[in-house]
C-alpha cells in the first residue's frame, strides 16, 4: 500500500538514491542501480564499477596499511584476496579508517586458507594494537621514582593508571618474534613458531614499542591495567607463572611506560 501513495513515493525517490546506489557496491554479482547511466542513456556497468572498485580497493589498501607484517607473511596476493572477503563481509562503520580492521584478526583465525599459519591472527592482533597505540592520547609515563615514593607497607595496595597507549596481546605462538621479523624489511630466518609469547605495546613518546613480556608479565600487567592493586596482580602472576620475577617486571613496566599515574586504595 505504501508504494501506491504518491507523496510517500516521491519522498522515496528523493531519499532512496543512497540505498539504491549502495545496493550493489559491495556485491559485484548485482546489477548497477537502474537510475544511473552515462550521458545520452549510455550504459553504466563500467561506470558504476569505478565506484565499486574504489570502495573495495581503498578498503583493502586500508587493511594492507594497518597489517603490513601480516601481508609480508602471506604475500600480497594472498593478503588482498583474504582482505577482499573481509571488506565485503565487514565494511567499516566509522569514517576513521585507522579504526578499521578490529575484526580482521578474528576473520583471519577463521579463514580456511590461513589454517596452516595459526600464529597469523595473533600477529595481526599485535599490528592492530600497534595502530591503537599510535593514535591513542599522549601522556607522560610514570617516572621511575613514583613507586619508590610509596611507603613499602602501602606498595601492595598501589593502583596504577594505565597509559592510554598500553596494549597487551597474548599468544600461544611466537607471535612477537614473527611480528618483529616481518614488520621491517630484510631477510627473515627460520622461526620456531611454537613458543608462546605475550606482546606489550606502548608508546611513552612518539615511537610505538613492541616488547616480549617475561613469564607471568602479561598476567601481572593485565591485572594492573584492570585496576587491581599491585599485591593482587603479583599474586596472580606468581600463581600463573612460578618463575615470575616481580622486581624485574616492575622495572620493565616502568621503562616501557605502561602506566601514567599511581594512587593507593582508600
Amino acid at each position, binding site marked *: 500500500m505504501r508504494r501506491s501513495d504518491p507523496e510517500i513515493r516521491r519522498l522515496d525517490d*528523493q531519499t532512496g*538514491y*543512497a540505498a539504491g546506489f549502495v545496493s550493489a557496491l559491495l556485491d559485484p554479482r548485482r546489477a548497477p542501480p537502474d537510475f544511473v547511466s*552515462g550521458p545520452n542513456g549510455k550504459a553504466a556497468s*563500467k561506470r558504476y564499477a*569505478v565506484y565499486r572498485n574504489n570502495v573495495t580497493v581503498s578498503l583493502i589498501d586500508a587493511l594492507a596499511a594497518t597489517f603490513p607484517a601480516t601481508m609480508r607473511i602471506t604475500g600480497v596476493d594472498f593478503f588482498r584476496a583474504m582482505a577482499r572477503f573481509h571488506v565485503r563481509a565487514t*565494511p567499516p562503520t566509522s569514517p576513521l579508517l585507522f579504526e578499521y580492521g578490529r575484526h580482521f584478526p578474528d576473520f583471519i583465525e577463521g579463514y580456511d586458507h590461513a589454517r596452516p599459519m595459526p600464529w597469523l591472527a595473533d600477529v595481526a592482533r599485535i599490528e592492530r594494537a600497534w595502530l591503537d597505540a599510535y593514535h591513542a592520547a599522549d601522556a607522560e609515563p610514570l617516572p621511575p621514582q613514583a613507586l619508590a615514593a610509596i611507603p613499602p607497607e602501602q606498595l601492595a595496595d598501589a593502583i596504577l593508571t594505565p597509559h592510554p597507549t598500553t596494549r597487551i596481546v597474548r599468544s600461544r605462538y611466537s607471535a612477537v618474534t614473527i611480528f618483529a621479523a616481518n614488520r621491517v624489511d630484510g631477510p627473515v630466518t627460520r622461526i620456531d613458531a611454537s613458543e608462546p609469547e605475550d606482546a606489550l605495546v606502548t*608508546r611513552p613518546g612518539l615511537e610505538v614499542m613492541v616488547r616480549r613480556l617475561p613469564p607471568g608479565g602479561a598476567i601481572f600487567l593485565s591485572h594492573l591495567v584492570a585496576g587491581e592493586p599491585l599485591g593482587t596482580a603479583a599474586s596472580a602472576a606468581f600463581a600463573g607463572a612460578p618463575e615470575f620475577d616481580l622486581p624485574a617486571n616492575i622495572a620493565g613496566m616502568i621503562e616501557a611506560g605502561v602506566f601514567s599515574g599511581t594512587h593507593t586504595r582508600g
Partner: protein
Amino acid sequence: MNELANSQRSGASAALRFPAHPVAGLAGTSLKHTHLPAILADDPQRGFFEVHAENYMGAGGPPHDTLTRIRRDYPVSLHGVCMSIGGPQPLDKVHLGRFKALVDRYEPALVSEHLAWSTHETTYFNDLLPLPYTQATLARVADHIDEMQETIGRPILLENPSTYVLFSQSTMSETDFLGELVRRTGCGLLLDVNNVFVSATNHGYSALGYLADFPLQHVGEIHLAGHAEQADDEGDLLLIDSHDGPVADAVWKLYDIVIDRRGPIPTLIEWDSDIPDWPILKAEATAAQAILDRCAHSLMPGKAYAAQ
C-alpha cells in the same frame, strides 16, 4: 574569498596559538608524512599544506605532532573527506564534533568538504559517492552545510565532484546546484579543475562551458590533480580521478584560464597515491605558483587602472 577564508580571524584573535599565516595567492600541496623530513630540512617556503581532516581525528600521537610542527610555519587547509554532506541521512554528530575540535585546535586558513556522500546507514564506503541534483537534495545538502558551518563557527568551501554516472532523477545542472547552495548557505566553493575536466570528459560536455556557468566569484580554493584513463561500456574514454600522477596539460590550460579570469586563488596540488619524492611534488606547486604570481601582477590595482 579572503573574507570567507579568514572570517574567523577578524574577531577576537587574542587566543590564537599559531601565527595567522595568510594563504592568499599561494600554491600548496597535500601533506604526506613521508615528505616530512624533507620539508622540515628545508627553510620554510612560500606555500601551504592541506590535510585530510579524518587522518588527524585520533586522540594523539605522531599525526598531531606533525601537524603542529607544520602549522607553526605554514598556513594549513583542513579538507574533510567523509562528512557525507550529500547523503540523505542526518550528519554524524560525533564526527561533526571531531571536526570542530580540529578547527579549534589548528585554526586552519581554509576549511572544505565535498559535494558527495560516503556513509549509508552504519556503513562507511570510503569513496566520494554521487547524488542526484533535485530540489529535495538541494534542500537537504543546504541544511547539512548550515549545520556544519554553525557547528564550526565559520563558512566552508564545498568541492565540485568528479563523477562517472548521471542520475535519471536529476532536474538541475551541477553548476546551478552549487550556485544555489552558495546563495542559501553562504558557503564558498572549492573548484577542483581536474574534477571539471574528468566529469566533462565522462559526460560529454564542455569543460569551458561548465566553467562559464560556475560561480567563480565564490571560489576560495582550487584543486589540481592527475587522472587516469579507462574505457566505458561503449569503449569511449572514461577518466578516473586517481590523484596518482602529475596534473594533465589540459587541466593546466583550464587552470590558467580560471586564474586569468579570477586572479590568484589559493591552489593545491593533490597527489595521494604513487606519491613521488618531495622535489617532484614541490615542482608541481611551483608551476602553479608561477601562474598565480603572473596573474597577481596583472591584477595589481595600478596596472588594472592603467590598462583602461
